[in-house]
């Protein structure tokens, strides 16, 4: 079983907090990897919130391919950070030669482009990079989006932390939202793309569970959006559904729960909004999920949320103090990062609610 975690704070947090959050849960995961998405960046990326940052792990050849493609597309590099690695002998990590986080300015041609056009350009560029790197297995491009950094690696999370010096807190590499997971794919082939959290156009999702409607989800999503690719993990479907509902259809977050875990028919018909609920269920029947799941998601406006499957078959707990909210599969993780919080205010979400943390750190519980 996976363990997942998320931190959202008024202050910038260093990834060491995410490692701390996950480390105490290590008996639940198998220490086979570490992946995190950082959003609302601080440190050296704080001044570039409007510009896209590329998160890349690749070979030297892959780096050249990437730079060439971006240059051709007209992107101009304004910032670059390569983490100083610490290759201590004996570390359990399958490291790639290059880990690159580069911020770019948009091409000149985008001067009068709308936000949507720019976003489409970023997605298309990332997909082109991914395709180019896949050809010779030269690397992995995880995200190319403003104010977002993604790191995914195979190995022991502690070793990965050591390798990237993530255990040493600093002011350079920080974010207000960090989502993390410490396990490589267990159901399918181990590939870096298969590690949660997944990111697409400002949306992040990670999950603890199984999606037994994976095939249905995948077949349906494949035709919905060009960015819905890969499907290396059944949990990617959760991200794509979130993205489709919220961004493509423009529906509110509250509909997410109704689509992935619809109310039983006998409950639906008692609701005043039964027509809308049935319409959603009918039209998006292939986005329903089944199987045990806890999902953590982040929206482009930095809203953080969590919800569970309809039978609450996976654990999750939300803990908080005045400055930080932590979501974690197990409470022991929260005890590590927020040891002095009032644990009586911890929330154990039920199967029919979404717990939503907005950008002012207000915690709301929405009943489905």
């Amino acid at each position, binding site marked *: *079983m996976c363990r997942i975690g998320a931190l959202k704070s008024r202050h910038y947090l260093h990834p060491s907090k995410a490692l701390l959050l996950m480390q105490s849960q290590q008996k639940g995961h198998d220490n086979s990897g570490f992946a995190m998405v950082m959003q609302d960046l601080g440190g050296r990326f704080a001044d570039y919130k409007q510009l896209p940052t590329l998160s890349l792990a690749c070979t030297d050849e892959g780096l050249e391919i990437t730079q060439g493609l971006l240059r051709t597309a007209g992107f101009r590099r304004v910032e670059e950070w390569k983490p100083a690695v610490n290759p201590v002998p004996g570390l359990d990590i399958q490291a790639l030669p290059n880990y690159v986080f580069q911020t770019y300015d948009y091409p000149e041609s985008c001067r009068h482009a709308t936000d949507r056009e720019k976003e489409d350009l970023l997605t298309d560029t990332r997909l082109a990079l991914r395709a180019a790197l896949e050809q010779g297995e030269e690397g992995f491009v995880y995200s190319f989006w403003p104010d977002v950094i993604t790191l995914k690696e195979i190995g022991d999370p502690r070793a990965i932390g050591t390798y990237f010096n993530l255990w040493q807190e600093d002011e350079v590499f920080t974010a207000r939202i960090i989502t993390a997971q410490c396990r490589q794919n267990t159901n399918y082939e181990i590939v870096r793309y298969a590690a949660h959290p997944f990111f697409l156009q400002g949306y992040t999702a990670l999950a603890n569970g*199984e999606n037994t409607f994976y095939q*249905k989800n995948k077949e349906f999503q494949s*035709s919905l959006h060009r960015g819905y690719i890969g499907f290396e993990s059944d949990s990617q479907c959760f991200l794509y559904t979130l993205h489709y509902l919220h961004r493509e*259809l423009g529906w509110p977050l509250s509909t997410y729960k109704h689509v992935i875990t619809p109310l039983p028919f006998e409950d639906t018909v008692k609701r005043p909004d039964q027509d809308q609920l049935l*319409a*959603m269920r*009918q*039209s998006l029947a292939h986005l329903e999920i*089944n199987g045990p799941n806890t999902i953590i998601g982040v929206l482009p406006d930095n809203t953080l949320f969590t919800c569970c499957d309809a039978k609450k078959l996976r654990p999750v707990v939300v803990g908080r103090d005045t400055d930080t909210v932590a979501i974690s599969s197990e409470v022991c993780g929260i005890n590590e990062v927020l040891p002095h919080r009032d644990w009586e205010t911890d929330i154990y979400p039920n199967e029919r609610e979404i717990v939503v943390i907005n950008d002012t750190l207000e915690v709301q519980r929405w009943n489905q």
Partner: protein
Amino acid sequence: MEPVKINDLACNDLPWKINYDAERCTLCGSCIAACTFDAIGPRMERRRMIYSDSEIPEPKTRFYARPVIDQQNVLKNYCRGCGVCERVCPNSAIRASRNPDSRFQVVYQCATGSAPKRGGRNNLEVQSRTLDTLRVGRISQMTDPSLDAQRHTFDCLAPLGRILPAKSLPLQISADGKLVQSSATPPVRWIYPVIIGDMSIGALSWRMWEAIAMAVAYLNEECGLPVRMCSGEGGMPVRLLKSRHLKYMILQIASGHFGWNRIIQAMPHMVEDPAGILIKIGQGAKPGDGGLLMAAKVAEHIQAIRGVPKTDLLSPPNHQGLYSIEESVQKMFLSFNAAFKFRVPVAIKVAASATSVSVFNNLVRDPYNIVGGFFLDGIDGGTGAAHDISLDHTGHPSVSKLRDCYLAAVAQGRQGQIPLWAAGGLGKTGNLAADAFKMICLGANGVFSGKLMLQMAGCLGNDLGRCNACNTGLCPAGITTQEPVLAKRLDPERVAENIVNYFLGMDTDLRKLMAPIGNSALPVGRSDCLVSTDKAVADRLQVQHVC
């Protein structure tokens, strides 16, 4: 002794032979009274007896007459093998046995200049079934646990009605951030995933039809299972049309339009909308053939409901004036949608065919969103009357075609927009839940079944040529007859009880299949949970081959 000509019909030409044991028979006459086909009758046999009445043997011969039960060697009254004689005989003195050397097909055609007609199913290929090579083989264990069929809740409903893609839904966000609907969408009914298939009140005795209707009402109102029943072509009693129970009924229209005059006249008086309208284009049991109700079954009440004289009632093979799929979409569907003011889903039923996907594609791409269901009927479906040759030698199995239609929808990103309902021999082995579940995994939203209901009612026929006399109006079980004396053999309440009990058992069975794959909603299109031991089947259906 009369001379026997070799060309005369003999009992050993017929498909069934009567085995009679005169020693056990008490001549009570039960068998003769029960045989609806007059296939047996009393006859006097001349017997010879050798005896001796002296102290030393002095053989003498004596002749005497003895009454016996005998098989008629008359083509019109040939034995159908229904076995009613055996069932009613108190002494086990009589039974029908299959004649492997039957010359029936030849002698019938030579004698009558016409081909045999019958009811029932395809009798030609009755061995292994595709569905029986499939198993639910993807079992949830450990990380995604199985559910508990007894304890957990399951949502076992299926849609009937046109479903719009999400981007076409008229939903807007209100000021308080909620989704509101700004205009109407096509009607969709969420119903039980097993529809009782279209058998008309003409093909069935009124008591049988009433028994199904009672069972459906009971399942809905007492058991909470929203099972729907399709009327079949031929209308229904006006009293039912005007009752609140109409909501459980799907009205069928086929090319004969039988019964629709009364339906239309009843429309102003309807207190409920019907569950749906099913336009029958084709039927799996006899594709390319029209409906057929023999004059023998067109009794007075059938004449009244259908508004016809006593004659053979033939629905044409196609809808008159219908020369293309487009026309059917634009005219028939619009007419019926409009007739019920767009409140009732209108679906189509076609026979599985090599062309089914083309038909489905035309409908799924229609821009008017008015086709609310694609009912695909396969070769193993049953019928009340058809030419033997149609039943045995035309048709297409529904399993692969259903899968093809679903995958065609997937390829276009249109899965679910027109709900797929499949039929054709489902439940043939007695387990409808297993067949339904597998079809659902292959892409069906639900299934429909007719013949199985007859078996629940006591139908004596089978797919090895037994009985299959639904066309004659002489059904020995009172199921497919309009003869009052025969229809009274059927106890409608008992039949309704049987159907209700079967559905309750089937509902439990469906959960017993959903639970191990960890699904609380119907796994439509989840072919990943099926495996096949047959490589060819696995490849054709795109499921995992296992051995």
